[in-house]
């Protein structure tokens, strides 16, 4: 009995301490990870070349263009040409080879676009913040370790809840009681979500970054990247023989149709051309199984290979033939990246992400309650730094979409300006948190600033791209319209929150003692 109580106490204590360490890093990961769920839509919104109204079902026809493009851009010498078909992730059609910059083709006009430096600036930056790789070398393993911390907190927290015999002390209306109950409710609610994402995240963060030494020694100090060693083996490209004799290819749309009729369950996302334009050319259509999306994710694509000259089926890779481990790996990646899911699933996951962020914050507030009644400057300073990290991240990230549209697209070091502004602005809030006396003012200014940045981002997006929110509505460019709406609604919510903060007693409690009143 004693041992059990002691165990409970130790677990409780370590839950607090580990929680406080993990909190800041994992909050960042959760915040940006939640934004990353909307990456496909953000990608469309941030790049001017995607500002057009795609035809229904992202239809395209490159029959006439394909040969011309392959000829003009020296693609024929490449071993294979990868075609990514237009989809909700990217309404442009992409042609890429191993060595050159990808070519983007507008599916409506079949014109090859110059996309320059507009490519995925915000989404890649947010993704790097999510994975922690903005911190060189140690960033990703650090986030991986934090994911393991979250696994401990989730399981340990559940055990604490399960084993708790005594009813929680405290009166209703007491803030500590409120935070504890919210921490419990949200914590229990997101157990499956946290387990899935922290498990896969720990795998991606820790295993992939710690694989360098193994790759280094296995390749006799030639290669430290495990990926470049294993990719040629596990994702081996089929070797098709060809001759130098030129041959005329069947039109791409016809091959596409043949693939569709031969393999109706396959949802085609891309195609690979082997030895295009020569005798023995093959086209492999890849995609996922409509009924088994998780098992046929990016690591385990199903495919059908056709002969490009006469359209006969050369090879077909069906789900039943793939190895069980491949299917498991695919499902594993699917749970972290949700690659082929569209808006509905993403919104649900983002809601869970928001609940997880709130759970982390309520855990901090629970701990901060205790410090409100203790003397000393440490508690106050921790509160202020926490505000700078937990809330200051909102205005700092809201300035990024605004800068994307204010700065010129051909600025060669735009990426560094944008990223630098993010860090500079964030450190400004850190300074402002100790400079300004009133906690309420700090929080409401942060929220107001974020709201203004989002509003201005929508305005400058309209001014520069010409797609104002009403225009995207009338034209039916729904991705742009929804993104603008989301920004505007978020700005409104932030304004209301800023007003509410000023009227809530809660935040004034943190001002009773402060760095201003002396200790």
């Amino acid at each position, binding site marked *: 009995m004693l041992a059990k109580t002691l165990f409970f106490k130790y677990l409780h204590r370590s839950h607090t301490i580990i929680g406080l360490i993990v909190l800041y890093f994992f909050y960042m990961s959760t915040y940006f990870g939640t934004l990353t769920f909307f990456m496909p839509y953000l990608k469309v919104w941030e790049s001017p070349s995607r500002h057009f109204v795609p035809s229904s079902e992202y239809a395209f026809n490159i029959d006439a263009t394909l040969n011309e493009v392959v000829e003009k851009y*020296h693609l024929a*010498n*490449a071993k*294979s040409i*990868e075609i*990514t078909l237009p989809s909700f992730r990217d309404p442009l059609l992409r042609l*890429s*080879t*191993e*060595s*050159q*910059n*990808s070519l983007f083709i507008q599916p409506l006009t079949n014109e090859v676009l110059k996309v320059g430096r507009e490519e995925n600036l915000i989404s*890649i930056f947010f*993704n*790097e913040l999510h994975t922690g*790789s903005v911190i060189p070398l140690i960033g*990703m393993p650090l986030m991986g370790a934090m994911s393991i911390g979250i696994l401990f907190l989730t399981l340990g927290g559940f055990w604490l809840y399960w084993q708790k015999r005594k009813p929680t002390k405290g009166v209703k209306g007491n803030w500590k009681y409120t935070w504890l109950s919210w921490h419990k409710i949200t914590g229990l609610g997101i157990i499956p979500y946290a387990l899935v994402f922290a498990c896969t995240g720990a795998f*991606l*963060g820790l295993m*992939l970054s710690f694989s360098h030494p193994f790759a280094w020694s296995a390749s006799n100090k*030639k*290669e*430290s*990247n495990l*990926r*470049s060693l294993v*990719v040629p083996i596990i*994702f081996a*490209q089929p070797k098709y023989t060809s001759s130098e004799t030129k041959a005329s290819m069947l039109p791409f749309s016809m091959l596409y149709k043949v693939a569709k009729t031969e393999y109706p369950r396959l949802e085609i996302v891309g195609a*690979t051309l082997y030895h295009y334009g020569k005798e023995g050319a093959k086209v492999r259509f890849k995609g996922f199984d409509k009924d088994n999306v998780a098992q046929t994710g*990016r*690591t385990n694509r199903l495919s059908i290979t056709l002969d490009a000259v006469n359209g006969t089926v050369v090879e077909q890779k069906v789900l039943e033939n793939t190895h069980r481990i491949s299917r498991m790996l695919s499902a594993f*990646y699917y749970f972290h*990246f949700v690659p082929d899911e569209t808006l509905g699933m993403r919104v649900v996951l983002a809601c869970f992400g928001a609940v997880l962020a709130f759970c982390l914050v309520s855990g901090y507030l629970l701990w901060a309650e205790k410090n409100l009644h203790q003397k000393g*400057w440490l508690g106050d*300073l921790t509160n*202020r730094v926490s505000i700078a990290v937990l809330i200051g991240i909102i205005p700092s990230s809201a300035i990024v979409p605004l800068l994307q549209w204010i700065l010129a697209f*051909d600025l*060669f*070091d735009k990426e*560094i*300006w944008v*990223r*630098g*502004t993010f*860090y*500079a602005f964030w*450190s*400004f809030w*850190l*300074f402002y*948190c*100790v*400079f300004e006396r009133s906690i309420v003012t700090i929080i409401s200014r942060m929220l107001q600033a974020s709201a203004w940045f989002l509003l201005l981002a929508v305005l400058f997006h309209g001014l520069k791209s010409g797609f104002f929110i009403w225009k995207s509505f009338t034209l039916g460019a729904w991705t742009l319209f929804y993104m603008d709406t989301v920004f505007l609604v978020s700005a409104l919510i932030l304004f209301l929150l800023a007003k509410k903060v000023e009227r809530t007693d809660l935040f004034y409690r943190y001002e009773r003692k402060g*760095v*201003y*009143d*002396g*200790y």
Partner: protein
Amino acid sequence: MGIKLWFVLLLGTHLFAHKIEGLVLVMTPLENDVIAIEGKMKGSGKKLEDNKVALISMIDKRVLFEDFLDGGKPLHVKIPQESYWVYMYVGDQDVVEEGIAPKAGFSKMATSQKERAYRTMAMITLGFIVLFFGVSGYRIIYY
């Protein structure tokens, strides 16, 4: 400019999106104001093949020269008379370096902007962090 290639799209597979790959653009000055340009993998030193390389003027962003790396052989290019960047295209990304000046110097010079953005923003960020420590230290000690 840091050459961290995110989403290195090996044949368009975004599989290990959480991964950094390093590539270097090597420029070796030769005689008679000619440079040899080649691309290498940072880790293995393997040479890149068939990538497009372009020399772009720093003054008016004109394309001065454009060609493909041929079978891993270094590309010999005459150094232009104005400040320029060397672009190498890899997958969806490009590697950019400021070009080497000819022996007699450029006839048209643009100020080097290589580290400008990085320096400015790093100074501002550090400034605020120093202010944070200064202000909080002042408050703790003097009250």
